[in-house]
């Protein structure tokens, strides 16, 4: 097993453990209202919470750009609180890759967008509590532009072939993803949070003739499924917050 695979498995195992650790307090919170008075059972917290538009940037991508010299990406996210702990979410960004091996050379660039929703599974402690632990789904689209490709076939018996080339091309990539994560309000309006993402390409066969090394938004182009994570710093703009929630008669 390579060092890279070992690191990957350790990361996945760590994330899984942390998800479980976080789930315990959530389950504990969901049990508490049963003990509370009747006045809190019928609170419609989403009504009093108002609206929130949250804009964020993925700082992992920025950090990763300095680690990798063969790929780069920038990713932004926006979500809008609709109601019932339900958020409309979108992400977008751009990036590219540069393959410069002895036997294979090309570059790709792409921009991407993805739309979907998040559902918070963390009960609010108050109407000002915007911390969330969420699960969600996305549909993603990217348009990849690939430069001309030059390659050499390495052969130990007959000797390497001369340099061959393939012309430039553009192609779309569609994928679906499931995501989960958490977000914490560090100071008023400023959030930090992470997402784990499982991504599944829908039209992988259409570009298997030369799968890109990296597709910003999706990940490795020659994989049918990718595991990814983001660490967002975001800012929430709020409005339409109402006064104390109305208490209903039982």
């Amino acid at each position, binding site marked *: 097993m*390579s*060092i*890279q695979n*070992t*690191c*990957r498995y*350790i*990361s996945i195992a*760590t*994330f899984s453990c*942390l998800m479980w*650790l*976080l789930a315990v*307090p959530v389950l504990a919170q969901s049990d508490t209202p049963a003990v509370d008075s009747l006045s809190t059972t019928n609170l419609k917290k989403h009504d009093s919470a108002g609206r929130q538009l949250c804009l964020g940037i993925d700082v*992992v991508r920025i*950090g*990763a750009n300095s*680690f*990798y*010299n*063969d790929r780069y990406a920038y990713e932004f996210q926006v979500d809008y609180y609709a109601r019932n702990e339900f958020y409309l979410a979108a992400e977008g960004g751009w990036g590219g890759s540069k*393959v410069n*091996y002895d*036997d*294979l050379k090309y570059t790709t660039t792409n921009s991407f967008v993805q739309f979907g929703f998040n559902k918070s599974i963390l009960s609010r402690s108050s109407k000002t509590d915007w*911390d969330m632990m969420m699960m969600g789904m996305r549909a993603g689209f990217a348009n990849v532009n690939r430069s001309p490709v030059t*390659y*050499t*076939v*390495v*052969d*130990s*018996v*007959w*000797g390497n*072939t*001369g340099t*061959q080339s393939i012309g430039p091309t553009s192609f779309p990539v569609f994928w679906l993803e499931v995501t989960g994560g*958490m977000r*914490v309000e*560090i100071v008023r309006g400023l959030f*930090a*949070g*992470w997402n784990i993402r499982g991504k599944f390409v829908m039209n992988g066969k259409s570009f*298997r*003739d*030369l*799968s890109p*090394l990296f597709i910003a938004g999706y990940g490795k*182009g*020659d994989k049918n499924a990718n595991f990814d*994570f983001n*660490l967002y710093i975001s800012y929430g703009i709020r409005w339409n917050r109402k006064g104390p929630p109305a208490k209903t008669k039982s």
Partner: protein
Amino acid sequence: MTRIRYSLLAFLSIVIIVSMACTQQRQPCLTPKTASLIIGTVHFKTDTSTVTVDTTLPHATFYPLSSQLNYVTVYPPQASFTVSLSPDTNYCQWLFETDSLKHIPDTVSFYYQRSAKFLSNACGFTYFYNIDSVHSTHLIIDSLHILNNSVTNNVNTKHLQIYIHRNF
């Protein structure tokens, strides 16, 4: 609860940075990069028999003719051999001896079509082949039979059967 969340955020950041630091620049190539043509050697049990048996050759030797490289493969006793086709042309020849000590060479000529195939970013490109025909001289070789025309990097497919004279 809040303190736990902040701690998790900080810990996750460290995990992410460590996992990125572990990433290699080019992934190792884990699939066969060269499309190999697999040959089996057989002979008829008797002169009149249609039943064949595998022929274990004592020290079979293969030389690629017109290769840029000085490449010779001497096999231990066995009945299955692997050769590659030239990726630069649609034709290549191999010199074939059943026993490196006897020096009775036959020439096997392969005619084929090539198609470039992208394996992965880790492995790069290779050529897959479609065999049109195979011919040989007949000092030791009795005849040839193509079992599978398609030569890919699948190492489990036998492509060519060489019928050896019974008293080689």
